[in-house]
Structure formats: structure tokens, C-alpha cells
């Protein structure tokens, strides 16, 4: 992107995360979009570097153009208007299972050292906390060619092992997905409120870049295991003016990105 980045005070953390998520989408890819922040990341990617990306939504919608106005859920009427196709869940899940989806986005309450995700229940000293559940997350993590998770960064949210694997990542490490007969895929990035983590050949997460507001030490201190750091660890690029324009024209009141 030739556009110069704006100084830090001029964008929010959520805007940085949306821009980082959008950049995970390569032009021409088929993307399983998911809920919340990724809804906007898809729009931003479409309006900037990935105009030919195709979005799949588990309600059965396929879009080649971004929804004309802000959506809160994938079934909001603007996501239907002008869609490429509106059919059923079995249809889009079949495309996912047969390997045609390059990238899927997921949220979660917890992500661990090997990129396994928990969105079902958390057991702690105060007892069990029930979360909403998988939705399509387990399906995306199981079947997409790669997936990206987006969540808040804290020691609680990034434990060494999740207490419940809702959506399988690299399990216990390299080779695990093949051993349990998952057909492909696995985590390619975790975008948090502090950093971007990526995954090594051994299936374990490492710190690839810290956001401008976070130091490497800060990220390590707020991670629930001894997080490895890339030799060439960098600072997460700030959102460009073009990306910020795409975000703000869409999320005018900052519901997702304030």
C-alpha cells in the first residue's frame, strides 16, 4: 500500500485489528467470514487490496461485493441485497468441507499455545462459565485451508491449554491434525488486542508482531505460556488512510470499531 500511515492517536485499537484481519485476505480468495469484527474485515479487504475476494456466510449467503451498509449479523437485509447467491447452510458448508474455502475467521473466548479455540465453557476457581458455543467455528477450524482467530489479549484468554477444544487448531503440536484425520488446515494467525501471533512448523504459536501500543515484553507478560518471539519480530503495521476510510464509511457510528 503506498498510502502513508496516520499517527497512533488517529485510529482505535479495533480499527487496527480490523485492518490486520483484512490483510489476511488475499485477492481472489474464498473466505468464510464469520461474526463480529471479521464482518468488517471482509468489507475493508474488498474495498482495498482484495476486490476479487468472495465471502461465504454460514446462513447460506455468498457475496462478491461488500454489503451496501453496516451489518450486525450475517442475515441482516443489506447482506442479502445484491448477494451473489442466497441458499442454505448445507450448501456453503459443503463448499467448506470439500476444500474450496481458503480462509475462515473465528472469534473465541480462549486460544492456546497450539491455536486450539474454546467458545463452549471455561472452568475456573469460581466454577463454570457457559459461553454461547461453537456456532460454525468448529466447522471452519476443521475444514478451511487456514483460519485466523480474533480475540482480546490476556493471560486468561490465552492459556497454555484451553479447557475445552471447541474448534481444533494444531491440537498437541505438529502432525496432530493428520493423526485425528482432519483433512487440511489449521491456524495461520491469531490477531489480539496486543499482537499478531503466527504458527511455526511445529504447530506452536509465536509472536510475529506487537501492536504499536504494546511492547514485546508486555505481550509476553499477558500470555499464559512462555510465548516464543520471532527473530524478526516487528510492529503491526498501522491502518492506512485508505483502510481507515473503508472502515469509517462503513461503521459510521463505531459500533464494531470504536
Amino acid at each position, binding site marked *: 500500500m503506498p498510502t502513508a500511515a496516520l499517527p497512533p492517536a488517529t485510529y482505535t485499537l479495533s480499527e487496527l485489528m480490523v485492518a490486520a484481519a483484512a490483510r489476511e485476505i488475499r485477492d481472489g480468495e474464498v473466505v468464510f467470514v464469520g461474526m463480529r469484527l471479521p464482518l468488517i474485515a471482509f468489507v475493508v479487504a474488498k474495498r482495498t487490496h482484495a476486490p476479487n475476494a468472495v465471502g461465504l456466510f454460514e446462513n447460506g449467503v455468498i457475496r462478491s461485493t461488500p454489503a451496501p451498509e453496516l451489518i450486525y449479523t450475517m442475515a*441482516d437485509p443489506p447482506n442479502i441485497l445484491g448477494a451473489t447467491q442466497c441458499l*442454505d447452510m448445507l450448501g456453503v458448508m459443503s463448499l467448506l468441507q470439500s476444500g474450496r474455502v481458503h480462509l475462515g475467521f473465528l472469534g473465541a473466548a480462549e486460544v492456546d499455545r497450539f491455536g486450539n479455540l474454546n467458545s463452549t465453557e471455561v472452568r475456573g476457581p469460581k466454577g463454570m462459565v*457457559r459461553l454461547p*458455543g461453537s456456532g460454525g467455528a468448529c466447522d471452519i477450524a476443521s475444514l478451511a485451508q487456514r483460519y485466523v482467530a480474533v480475540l482480546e489479549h490476556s493471560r486468561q484468554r490465552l492459556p497454555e491449554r484451553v479447557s475445552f477444544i*471447541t474448534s481444533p487448531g494444531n491440537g498437541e503440536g505438529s502432525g496432530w491434525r493428520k493423526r485425528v484425520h482432519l483433512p487440511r488446515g489449521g491456524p495461520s494467525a491469531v490477531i489480539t488486542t496486543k499482537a499478531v501471533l503466527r504458527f511455526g512448523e511445529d504447530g506452536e504459536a509465536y509472536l510475529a508482531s506487537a501492536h504499536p501500543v504494546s511492547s514485546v515484553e508486555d505481550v509476553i507478560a499477558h500470555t499464559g505460556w512462555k510465548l516464543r518471539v520471532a527473530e524478526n519480530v516487528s510492529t503491526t503495521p498501522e491502518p492506512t488512510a485508505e483502510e481507515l476510510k473503508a472502515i469509517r464509511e462503513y461503521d459510521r457510528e463505531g459500533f464494531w470499531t470504536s
Partner: protein
Amino acid sequence: MSKLLSMSDAIATLIPDGASVALGLQLEQMIPFAAGHEIIRQKRRGLTLIGPISDILFDQLIAAGCVERVIAAWVGNVMMGSAYNFRRAVEQDGLRVTNLTNFAVALALQAAAMGVPFLPTRTALGSDTALNNEFFTEMESPFHAGDKLHAVRALAPDIAIVHVQRADRNGNAHCWGNFGVMVEAVRAAKRVMIVAEEIVDPEVIASDPNRTMLPGFLVNAVVECPYGAHPSPVQGYYKRDDAFFRQYHEQTKTREESAAWLKRWVYGVNDRRDYMNQLGAGRVEELGVKQHAYAVQTDYGY
């Protein structure tokens, strides 16, 4: 034969205590809230709720004490996150929940729709969702030794409740937008109830058979109920009432607040007309279609 019934008669006739009820099958669109509220008013007990994601209707039925078991992939408030009554019921009251994934819900219903005991899939291998779960078992492909898959067990709800744009009195129904797992749920269910924004002449439905997502012979009851899906959206009729979902989140944090919410929006109104009056003409006007977007005509001539 006309299958038209009032909402109260349809619920009274079709949904006994202990029934398994599939709801919210088109995901965040066209959720049959009016039917759910009538179930609450008629004080059904011991229900099993089935659905992929439910948005806040499952939470309301749980708050009202109608529910014994949930078979679903996701229960919450889609734009806000968790739903408090579901959380309380699981964490404190021991509500029985069977965790599925969206794809597994679709496959379980499709298996029942096809009359087979299971369907194979590659989803959820290595996921704890599949452990100790009666809907999943590992299997090997009968055609390729060593090819391990999950079998997902068939699930046939006692009744599926589906909201649509328009239906005729015989239960043939047009629906557009996204379908989620509606079609397979309708084929899987033992009984089907349709709630329609409008009842139209059979000729209107027959004029566009590709839009007929439900054939009348599978349908037991048709209820006319304008705005019956509010606060969820119905394409071409009204948009999503986002503020209502936000307010529900704010107004149901405790049991007492949830009881007050139900008293105001469910027990305190007789029917959907009362409910919409309480919502107010200004709000209803605001939710209405501002710019129509008609599809081109389709020529079925020959």
C-alpha cells in the same frame, strides 16, 4: 383444505408439553418470535429446543421455564454476545445442553429428512464437542480403509416452526433471503407450522414454484401474523430492530429483570397486535422498507 389457524390455536394444537421444537432455522433472519411468545403464554413445559443458532428467542423460552433441554450449536445474543438466562440456566440450574456445530445441526436434520440414521462428515474431528456426545461417533469409510470420519446422528424434531414472507391457506409458502437449515428441518420434522407475514391466493404461490420453499402437503398449520418475526428481520417487510436486541441485553441481566421483561413484552400482551402497539407506531414505521428492491420478473411460459 385450509390449514389456517390462529396463533393460539396452532400452538395449543401442535405443541404439547415435552415436545422437541426446531426454531430459528434461518439463523438471524425470520425467527418466529411471535410463536415463541405464545408458547410462553400457554406455559408449555419440558420442551427440547433445536436450532443452529437461536439469537435471543431460546433465551426467552429458557427464562420463562419452558425448556428442559437444548440441542444447538450456539445460544446467545448475536450482536451483543452472551444471553444471561441461558448462562444462568446452565451454570446454576443444570439445564441439559447438547453441543453441536452448525454443520452438524444441518447434517442431523438432513439425515432425518433423507430417512437415513446418520450422515458422514469430516467436521469436528479432534474437537471436544464430539466427545461424550450422542450425536457424534467415529466411523471408517466403508469404501476406503483407514479413512476416518464422524457420523452425525439423525435428528427429527416433533415440530418445526418457520416464519416466511407469504403462504397460501394450504401451507405452500414463498420465502426469500437466506434459508439456513429450514428446508431440511421442514423435511425432517414430524409436524410443521408456518407463520406468514401475509396469506395470499394459491395462484400467487403457484406462479413462482422456484420460490416455494415449503410444499403445503408437509405443513400442518398456517398462521397469519404480520411482524411475527420482530425484532429479527424479514426481507422486503421490515429490517432488524438492532436497538431491541441491545435493550434485551441490558434489561435481562438478573432473574428479576428477565421476569419484568417477560411480563412487559409477553405476558402483558394478548397477541402480536398488542405487542406492536406497545412497540409504537413510530418504531414500526422506522423499521419498514425505505427503498424497495424488486427482482426482475421470471417467465415460466413455454
